[in-house]
């Protein structure tokens, strides 16, 4: 074969010389040239058939027939008929083209792959299609005519491979056809060509051994691709609210729409969380667990029974709502329930951990995707060009928004020009600095004040709870939630006012604003948690210090009480048959998990109410007022003071993020939280879409949403991390209540895992796990992870630097030219 190569190589060179092509272009590496030479050999030979009659051609043909055992002449055996014919057809077509195209095929135009070469060739053949087709038919006829005499020849491996390669290339071409900036006609004709070619030869390729399998494989691939395409279409059709969001986009631009897209994405996440908690925790307990009223923990205590069905109690999530699958306390600690032997405590634990894990995974994945789309990140070298070429928002379809967009573009141009021209104004820098320090100080004061207020209010509510909530009115009962919601509403406005002192560039001012609101919400949430935790810790410390005795005391009290029913001796051992006592009368131990869950649920509900009321009053009533009172008012309401409100994107997005943080924190203690959140997001979407279209006007400063996307994702990730800390802490360090929930009776919640390992897995599994959780193994593993992190960081840095180098080189080369 080596000798063949050389011959081919020299033949090619000669051909190239004859055609007078530009040698400069053929500086491919010898190896590729060889490979190309092989492929081109056939094309070249075919081309020569029509152009030249010569010994060289005969030599080639003889050479070819030596390889393929064909008779001199261009007839192929039956098995080779189609490939050769195709090559001949291609040859015919090519021979009609100009030199340039042949050169394209021969040489390697830099930056163009083989696909594009072929594609370009084919596209240029549009006009000559009819001639080529006719020729094809002629050749076919002639081929078939004289084929009848020749015998079957096996296709050599090489040819097979070559053919496969060509078919693969054609397939690749078909797949990338939509990326080419051609007109539809061109694309259609190229597509048809390529499809015909692929169809013809896929059959031929299957000759020889494994033909059936190959054909089967091809058919399966086709079916798979069709399935993928249909699935894509189906997925696109399934996306909810697409038309609504598009409408908003056209009226308000992409930044407002990005909030709704974010909302929709959150809705998706919450649906999955809801599916997990509902399907794996709530439904099994409801279907297979002991029914309501069979156990003390599942029954409303006698004392509360009278008010248990009241709407007020239910709205407060006590009464019947508390003693149901909605909260932690209802679940029984039986290891398996029902005939399916469903491991309820294990499932509860795993769902809790799994929700957190899933959320982490999906947020990180979205961040990575966004980072990819972002390109090189912050590049300030193209400020003006980007302003010019990318500032128009093509999604705007409303003339009013378009006018606003024009105005904002003009302003931004003027600003940028001014900034570029003038040097920084040095005057009054001390005043500016002083004002900025003052503003930051004021912001810090606000934050501290709001934190203290929340702490104070939570403490007060605990006092109220100790003294019995019935003695207090509505305000005292809902003090905490209302205060938190009000703080969340008014402090951002306060920050806005403070920021006017600072006199920053609008983009920088927005960043400060977002940062401050973030700190506010975070501070509020954490003060709330700390206050709650304080209370729990008090109880926990109470337990820890008196733990066993306390339990014993309560349990002893219970047995005594039971015994009193016997009217007789105190049973020391429980061999006596248990008396049927109504579970509602049994004295209960405290259940802090349910209490925590209830707090979170109440917070979520009140947050939801506050948002809706704010929208209705702040946006809708305001719009109604401005619209109808404008006729009888002294100044123009629409342009003057109240005017219509703008949609506050950052406030809404942050609200959404913090709401989600609360859900993540509380869903371990109240499995109903994701369900409530799904409901909340669903109604939010409709309400806010309606409110935006009906009561809001496009913003004056229409800006694009893309830069902020990753900022919001980063905040979400941070919140997720912070939200999981309390749950993890309680799982690991605080003993669960002994009288309620699926982990009652254990000293720590995670013991359910070791229990499962003991009972449900073969013994060697437990041993392996024991070894794996040995610190001797864990520490080296952690070390390994740290090392790999360091390594990956180092490589990514080096790639970035290489990138920069290349960029600089590019610039300098361009400048030189």
């Amino acid at each position: 074969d080596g000798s063949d190569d050389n011959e081919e190589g020299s033949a090619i060179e000669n051909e190239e010389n004859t055609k007078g092509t530009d040698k400069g272009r053929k500086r491919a590496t010898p190896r590729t040239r060889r490979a190309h030479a092989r492929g081109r050999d056939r094309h070249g030979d075919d081309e020569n058939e029509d152009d030249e009659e010569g010994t060289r051609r005969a030599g080639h043909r003889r050479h070819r027939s030596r390889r393929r055992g064909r008779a001199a002449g261009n007839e192929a055996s039956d098995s080779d008929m189609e490939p050769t014919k195709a090559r001949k057809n291609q040859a015919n077509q090519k021979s009609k083209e100009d030199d340039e195209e042949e050169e394209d095929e021969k040489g390697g135009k830099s930056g163009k792959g083989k696909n594009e070469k072929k594609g370009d060739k084919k596209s240029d053949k549009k006009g000559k299609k009819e001639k080529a087709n006719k020729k094809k038919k002629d050749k076919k006829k002639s081929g078939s005519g004289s084929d009848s005499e020749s015998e079957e020849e096996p296709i050599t491996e090489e040819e097979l491979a070559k053919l496969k390669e060509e078919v693969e290339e054609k397939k690749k071409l078909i797949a990338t056809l939509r990326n080419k900036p051609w007109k539809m006609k061109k694309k259609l004709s190229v597509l048809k060509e390529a499809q015909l070619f692929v169809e013809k030869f896929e059959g031929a390729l299957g000759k020889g051994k494994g033909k059936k399998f190959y054909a089967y494989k091809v058919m399966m691939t086709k079916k798979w691709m069709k399935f993928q395409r249909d699935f894509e279409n189906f997925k696109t059709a399934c996306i909810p609210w697409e038309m609504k969001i598009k409408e908003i986009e056209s009226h308000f631009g992409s930044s407002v729409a990005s909030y709704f897209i974010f909302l929709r994405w959150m809705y998706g996440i919450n649906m999955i969380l809801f599916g997990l908690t509902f399907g794996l925790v709530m439904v099994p307990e409801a279907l297979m667990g002991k029914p309501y009223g069979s156990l003390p923990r599942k029954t409303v205590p006698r004392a509360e029974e009278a008010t248990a069905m009241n709407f007020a109690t239910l709205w407060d999530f006590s009464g019947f709502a508390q003693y149901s699958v909605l909260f932690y306390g209802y679940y029984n600690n039986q290891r398996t329930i029902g005939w399916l032997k469903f491991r309820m405590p294990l499932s509860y634990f795993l769902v809790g951990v799994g929700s957190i894990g899933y959320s982490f995974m999906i947020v990180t994945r979205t961040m990575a995707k966004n980072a990819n789309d972002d390109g090189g990140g912050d590049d300030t070298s193209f400020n003006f060009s980007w302003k010019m070429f990318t500032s128009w928002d093509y999604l705007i379809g409303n003339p009013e928004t378009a006018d606003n967009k024009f105005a904002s573009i003009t302003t931004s141009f003027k600003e940028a020009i001014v900034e570029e021209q003038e040097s920084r104004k040095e005057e009054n820098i001390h005043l500016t600095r002083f004002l900025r320090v003052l503003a930051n100080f004021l912001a810090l004061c606000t934050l501290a004040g709001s934190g203290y207020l929340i702490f104070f209010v939570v403490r007060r509510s605990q006092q109220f709870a100790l003294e019995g909530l019935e003695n207090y009115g509505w305000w005292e009962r809902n003090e905490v939630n209302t205060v938190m919601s009000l703080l969340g509403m008014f402090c951002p406005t306060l920050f806005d006012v403070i920021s006017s002192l600072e006199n920053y560039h609008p983009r920088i001012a927005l960043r400060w604003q977002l940062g401050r609101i973030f700190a506010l919400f975070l501070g509020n949430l954490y003060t709330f948690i700390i206050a709650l935790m304080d209370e729990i810790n008090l109880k926990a410390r109470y337990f820890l210090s008196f733990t066993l005795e306390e339990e014993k005391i309560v349990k002893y009290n219970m047995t005594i009480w039971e015994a009193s029913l016997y009217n007789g001796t105190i049973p020391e051992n429980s061999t006596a048959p248990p008396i049927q006592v109504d579970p509602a009368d049994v004295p209960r131990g405290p259940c802090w998990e349910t209490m925590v869950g209830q707090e979170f649920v109440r917070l979520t509900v009140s947050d939801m109410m506050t948002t809706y009321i704010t929208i209705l009053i702040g946006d809708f009533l305001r719009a109604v007022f401005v619209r109808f009172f404008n006729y009888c008012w002294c100044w123009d309401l629409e342009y003057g003071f109240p005017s219509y409100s703008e949609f506050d994107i950052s406030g809404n997005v942050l609200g959404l993020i913090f709401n989600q943080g609360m859900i993540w924190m509380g869903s371990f203690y109240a499995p109903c939280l994701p369900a409530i959140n799904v409901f909340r997001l669903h109604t939010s979407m409709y309400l806010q879409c309606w409110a935006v279209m009906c009561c809001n006007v496009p913003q004056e400063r229409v800006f694009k949403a893309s830069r902020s996307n990753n900022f919001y994702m980063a905040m979400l990730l941070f919140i997720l991390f912070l939200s999981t800390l309390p749950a993890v802490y309680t799982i690991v360090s605080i003993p669960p209540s002994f009288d309620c929930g699926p982990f009652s009776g254990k000293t720590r919640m995670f013991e359910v895992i070791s229990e499962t390992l003991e009972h449900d897995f073969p013994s060697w599994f437990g041993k392996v796990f024991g070894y794996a959780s040995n610190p001797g193994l864990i520490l080296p593993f952690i070390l390994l992870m740290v090392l790999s992190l360091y390594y990956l960081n180092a490589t990514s840095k080096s790639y970035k630097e290489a990138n920069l180098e290349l960029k600089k080189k590019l610039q300098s080369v361009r400048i030189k030219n």
Partner: protein
Amino acid sequence: GDMGGSASLIPQDLLSEYQELTFLSKQEILLAYKRFSELLPKEEREDAYSARVPKSQILTLPELRANPFQHRICHVFSTSETGDDSMSFEDFLDMLSVFSDSATSDVKSHYAFHIFDFNDDGILDRKDLEHLVNCLTGQGEECQLSITEMEQLIQNILEESDFDKDGTISLPEFQHVVSRSPDF
């Protein structure tokens, strides 16, 4: 109901080919067909696939109405031989495909360049850039930039993007500039 009707007017194999060749999904193509045939007068609706819609009709689409580049967009995507910028259904599909979310940056920047090239000479020279700025700043007198501002702006742009310093921006330079932008 309507979807079923319009689906029968595009042959099935053509529909799947359009799906291959554009970035649109099947529903989007059918919706495009519906919108397109609504632009035609009633008599021609049956034959929407091979009809051409005059430019004035295309510009009534809400998406193009407020767009300052509406004329250029029609011109760039039209394959009309008479130069009247009328569009056939395939041109319409091309346009929707390029503007869709899933189109690659290469395709978009290629077409954007041609849209911005007001005099169709294959490069963006000073006149093109001036025209571009005037489009972006709106039609009112007070919105336009002054002569000095315009000069300054164009100067800055050329400094940033014109790598070979020939006073014009060519397609590769344009693509290099906008490919770095996250907003494109």
